[in-house]
């Protein structure tokens, strides 16, 4: 397989986690990593008190990069000081949200950065056994990580008595079971325990209290754990200066779909608008095409319509909050504004659709994914995701009836907020937003007033063998 072409970082990017990704001559082995200052941050970390590292992470205001954007320091703070049970750290490398492609580049090109981030995090959390749960579809990544772990061990960064500190840590790579739900943190934990990846109910099974093997467990995304290394290097306060308050640091966004130059970009959070990302970094939509819709944070995020307007609150000159009306392309690439506009920054996967796209078809594509990936544990998601898929299937096949858009909206509403895990929202938010924001396209596909004809195999002639 030919080596993928290396991308030249866009000048408006700020590469921290991706500093070595696409670097000319950079290789994933430890020698190369060490030449570029590798494991120096670990050496610094082990001189710090673990609690101080946790405090630095808290000060950094780092938010999780997996999708939910939960503050990492707060999550770490759930581990009680003086915990008597073993504490586990799990790196969630099950990157499978459609539209998301970032962790795989860290794993493939700079695995030691992740390993170092994990070792520092484990040291901070008093973890002696950490798991790297990597998506089953990333066999090469798993191999690379296995090799990196062996190298780190051989160099005294992993294993017994790390860097002479007396701190022990083992990291095991666990290959995933080939299902999207394995990326849900409690589903991941079940899967790691050798069971079907059925997410657990919360309460009581909050991972930080009753996680892996019913012990306190921290599950962090690949990118999040990499950031920990940089927080230790620059200090939490310094890290927090990158980005905007509560939306700190850099993050990797992956733009796919109908743009001239799709790809991944590491940007300072909030440093540019969705419009600048699409038009400046990605070269805009293809010539002769018009922007129609954007999914801003992975396939689960609610879709934006190109002509949507939002009223957000911004700080005025005097520091007081004032209301401001903005368009979709004016939304800054951060967590909070994206949420204020009714969607989410999610996993950083930006999916762009131009005016050549049929929105029913686009939604149907997502519906297929979610119906296929629903684990089926709890009722609303199990039955609802397939139902929604069947409706859009039928609409595309010409069998749409007038009630379909309303049924789609109602079914999605009956799922969201009523399931064990966030998959319920993940599968219903696209439906809710597509149907609400592109009503004309759904209405156009839902013209029939009567139920569709009975499929031929269910006609009575077929059932009775052609009649008597």
């Amino acid at each position: 397989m030919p080596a993928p072409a290396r991308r030249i970082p866009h000048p408006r990017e700020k590469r921290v986690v991706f500093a070595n990704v696409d670097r000319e001559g950079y290789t994933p082995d430890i020698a190369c990593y060490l030449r570029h200052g590798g494991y120096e941050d670990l050496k610094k970390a082990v001189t710090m008190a673990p609690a101080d590292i946790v405090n630095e992470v808290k000060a950094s205001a780092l938010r999780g990069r997996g999708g939910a954007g939960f503050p990492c320091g707060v999550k770490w703070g759930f581990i009680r000081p003086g915990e008597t049970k073993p504490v586990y750290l799990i790196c969630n490398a099950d990157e499978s949200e459609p539209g998301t492609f970032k962790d795989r580049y860290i794993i493939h090109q700079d695995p030691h950065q992740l390993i170092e981030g994990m070792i520092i995090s484990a040291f901070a959390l008093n973890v002696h056994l950490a798991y790297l749960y990597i998506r089953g579809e990333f066999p090469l990544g798993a191999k690379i990580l296995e090799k990196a772990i062996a190298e780190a061990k051989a160099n005294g960064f992993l294993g017994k008595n790390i860097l002479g500190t007396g701190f022990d840590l083992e990291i095991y790579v666990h290959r995933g079971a080939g299902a999207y739900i394995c990326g849900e943190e409690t589903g991941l934990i079940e899967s790691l325990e050798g069971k079907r990846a059925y997410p657990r109910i919360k309460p009581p099974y909050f991972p930080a209290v009753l996680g892996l093997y019913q012990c306190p467990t921290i599950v962090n995304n690949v990118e999040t754990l990499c950031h920990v290394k940089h927080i230790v290097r620059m200090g939490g306060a310094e890290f927090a200066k990158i980005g905007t308050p509560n939306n700190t640091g850099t993050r990797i966004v992956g733009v796919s779909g109908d743009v001239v130059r799709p790809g991944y970009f590491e940007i300072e959070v909030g440093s540019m608008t969705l419009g600048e990302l699409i038009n400046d970094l990605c070269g805009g939509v293809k010539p002769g095409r018009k922007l129609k819709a954007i999914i801003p944070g992975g396939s689960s995020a609610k879709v934006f319509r190109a002509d949507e307007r939002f009223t957000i609150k911004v700080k005025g000159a005097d520091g007081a909050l004032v209301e401001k009306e903005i368009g979709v392309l004016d939304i800054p690439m951060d967590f909070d504004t994206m949420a204020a506009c009714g969607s989410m920054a999610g996993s950083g996967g930006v999916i762009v659709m131009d005016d050549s796209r049929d929105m029913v078809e686009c939604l149907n594509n997502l519906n297929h994914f979610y119906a296929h990936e629903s684990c089926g544990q709890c009722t609303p998601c199990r039955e609802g995701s397939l139902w929604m898929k069947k409706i859009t299937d039928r609409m595309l096949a010409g069998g749409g009836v007038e009630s379909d858009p309303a049924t789609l909206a109602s079914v999605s509403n009956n799922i969201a907020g009523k399931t064990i895990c966030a998959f319920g929202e993940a599968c219903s938010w696209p439906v809710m937003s597509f149907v609400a924001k592109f009503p004309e396209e759904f209405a156009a596909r839902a013209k029939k007033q009567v139920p569709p004809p009975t499929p031929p195999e269910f006609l009575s002639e077929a059932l009775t063998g052609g009649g008597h």
Partner: protein
Amino acid sequence: MSNEATTPKPVELVNVQIDGVWHQFPKGTRIIEACSQAGKFIPRYCYHPKLSSPGNCRMCMVELGMPKMTPDRKPELGPDGKPLHNWIPRPQISCAQDVSEGLGVRTASPMVEEARKGVLEFLLINHPLDCPICDQAGECRLQEFSYDYGQAKTRFLEEKVKKPKRVEIGPRITLDDERCILCTRCIRFMREVAKDDVIGIVERGSYNSIACHPDRKLDSNYSLNTVDLCPVGALTSTDFRFKMRVWFLKETKSICTSCATGCNTVIGARENIVYRQTPRENNDVNQAWMCDYGRLNFHALHSPERLLSPVVNGKEQPDWKAALASAAAALKAFAPEQIAVITSGKMTNEELFLAAQLAKTLGVSKHDIVPHADAGDDILLSTDRNPNTAGAKLLGLSASTPGANLPAIAEGVRNGAIKALVVLGEDATEAGLTAADLAKLTVLVTTAILPNATTAAASHLLPSAGFAEKRGSMINKNGRLQRLNRAIQSPGLARDDWEILVGLIEAVTDSSLGFAAIEDVVKAMTAATPALAGLSLSKIGDLGVQLEPISAR
């Protein structure tokens, strides 16, 4: 009361508001149970109080409110002096969380009703809706909650998911995967109670199906409990399916008589036929379970071989009085030491009491019960297959080691010392005697429901009643006094054992005992037995009475 009675630990009570009314519940009470106790039943499918809570069906959703806190973390109080609530904006399951101080619950708010309607619709869209031919009909939770949350019209225009039907998942269980709502009660029961983690879910999403491990069958001796647990018609008893609509079954509370555990049961019968036996909850005995072996043992009641008429010296004698007079006369012809009585640990206390009276009347000193032992387990099945060994000991009919007197009786028959033998509810060939030994006897009086070597050799065969055809009491291996109830009448001329024994005693003594009903026997028995003093069948109740510890087994 025993002297070691300790003061019970003080249970911490928490204040919980349910639908606007404040209640107190012990800490540790599940929200769903607290609501039930407050008279607000919450619909549920996956939740079962005796199994873990996976929270997967989402039917038990309620609105929960956490006590509103002031900035100094004190509950904010309303005008009634009770905490105000911050209501969680999304419905929450009530099956997996315990009540907490100040909690607020809304069990029937618009949000809750809408959520449950949504869940029920989801459960039904791929359900075959084949209620007219479904065994669960009439006791189906889908049907039940459809009354409350169902819709008259379907919005589902699509083709339903097709799944395996009529799967013989085990020797006694037939599975219809299309009816299954994937609540996993069966899986959890097999894992947590039966300790045989043999079934699970295969496939994904809406195609999820219950399946057995490829190399195994759902063949545990507890497999039929999964049928009871199944809230819908997915798991059906191969024995019971298509036999009878459940709403026609007359339900009689009784106990299982297949071992010394004495699992509490419900006998389902119609028109003198027992169609099924299901476990009845008794936390002091069997939780909510019973074993398949005990459950299916009722079929003997309807054997075509059932003995229907008294037989005297090879000839049917439909006149009970004549048959009993003949038996009494035959027995009286012998001196007491020439007679032995073999009774059974399967007899009720009342029958054993009368059997003791008979022995006393005849002056017989040689008697015992026949021990029946087989492999037991750590769940419910006892190695002692006699349901009333403890009663036989209490009433003096069993040797301290059951069966210890049998070799002497057998030797007496063999050497001719014993000429007359009374065998009640047992086959003497299981008591150390052979058919040839029995042939030596001059008189052999026996009660039985089915033919055996003893009935074949009997001079006087007195057909009696099966366990579902009689009332009475038994004492289980843990010293719990429990009662049987009559679900059906005995077939033909077969008679309740206590009546046979009373008739026999009266024929021997030529006087009346004055027992008009089983209650009279109970009265005499409890008066004569200090351990049972003051008890009656009605006082035993549905759940039994724990007697002072007696050395059972």
